[in-house]
């Protein structure tokens, strides 16, 4: 289980469709948890508590007010994607402001595609380049040598906040998070010599 798993909320009144969708979505490698919203009266309240990473909702549930932004209607933050679940013959304008559309006859791979696109819209750009930058390599060497965030900040003349950002990016790119794991990576990739490191 990667720590990048997302939390999805599904709002749909039909039992069979909701359960089916919840199950299908939960099988996706990107998804950590799927929450069902059965009652739609206090949907805004529920969303504010659950704070999901994305919402899948049948546009019919919000009535026929197809003008305006779905996010205003739901008081969701702008960066939370809202995906329309469409299985009725409805006007396209009802879901034009949604970030993605899942149709009842979509295949498994299509579903996965829509999910990935919506969940990782912003990250996609940076994701292409998974190599560590030279700066990140320098920071990595300091981490492996056992320096604290504060020491790294002073040594490289950057703020602690920047150190933390670098650490996060290193972890994301390498998918290795513990210092001892990073140490093995650094030795294998000849960034440090095994003799300089205390294991």
């Amino acid at each position, binding site marked *: *289980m*990667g720590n990048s798993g997302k939390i999805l909320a599904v709002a749909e009144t039909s039992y069979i469709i909701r*359960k089916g969708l*919840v*199950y299908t979505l*939960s*099988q996706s490698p990107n998804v950590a948890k*799927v929450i069902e919203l059965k009652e739609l009266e206090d949907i805004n309240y529920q969303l504010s508590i659950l704070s999901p990473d994305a919402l899948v909702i049948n546009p019919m549930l919000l009535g026929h007010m197809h003008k305006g932004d779905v996010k205003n209607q739901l008081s969701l933050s702008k960066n939370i994607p809202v995906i329309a679940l469409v299985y009725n013959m409805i006007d396209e304008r009802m879901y034009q402001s949604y970030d993605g559309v899942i149709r009842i006859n979509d295949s498994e791979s299509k579903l996965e595609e829509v999910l990935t696109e919506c969940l990782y819209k912003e990250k996609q750009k940076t994701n292409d380049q998974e190599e560590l930058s030279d700066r990140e390599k320098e920071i990595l060497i300091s981490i492996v040598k056992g320096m604290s965030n504060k020491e790294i900040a002073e040594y490289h003349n950057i703020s602690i906040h920047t150190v933390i950002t670098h650490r996060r990016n290193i972890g994301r790119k*390498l*998918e*290795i*998070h*513990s210092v*001892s*794991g990073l*140490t*093995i*990576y650094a*030795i*294998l990739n000849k960034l440090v010599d*095994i003799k300089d490191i205390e*294991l």
Partner: protein
Amino acid sequence: MSTNVTVRYNRGMKMSDLIDADYTLLLLLARLKFSLGFGDKSVEVVCEQYDFDTDCFLFLANFQSNRSIMDVDEQFNQLPLEPFIRYLNCSHEYFLEKRLPNIRRKLKLIFTENEKDLENLVLKFFDNYMGEVNEHMKYEDNTVFPYVRRLLECPCSDTYSIDIFEERHNDIEEKMADLKRILMKYVSGLKDQTLMTNILMELYQSEEELAAHTFIEDHLIIPRVKNMEKDCNKLHL
């Protein structure tokens, strides 16, 4: 896991059918120290044989295979706590005495002559990790679980609080995941690819087992114990 079939487990079904429905449940049996060779006995009969609450067993089995379609909290709240403490105790023993030593034994066999340095590095990493897991689990076995048992038997006579545990409960899956990635990405596996595949699958599985284990502790046991503590405080006021 047979992802195309969903079977809800019940007490009357044969234990062998349960395993057929999802063979990863063999791991659940191992963690609970249920031996194999159960013939055509039902789930209920096998559980009784080991004096383990059948409903709790079914919960654990469904939790492992059908988590996405069950209401975990609602079902857990109707079950007694003691069997889960016993389950966690047993699982600890299984991780410390079986699972991790078995991985270590295999790790020693996958490196070529040229990969000696790497071998030492990886084994050292693994030994440190085993030390951490050991400390983590022993603390639960020796301090946390006895406290919960005392609380179940005779409420309200204690000074320990589950908050202490919640605060210091650290993540033990992270390093398992790191090891998995390092082996997968940077070790050739030239010496014995079959064994290498086997180790990687075992690491993936262990990581899942540990994650489920942690979930039970953090999201089911701790909240339940907190409620028990709350009731105590009310009595005392």
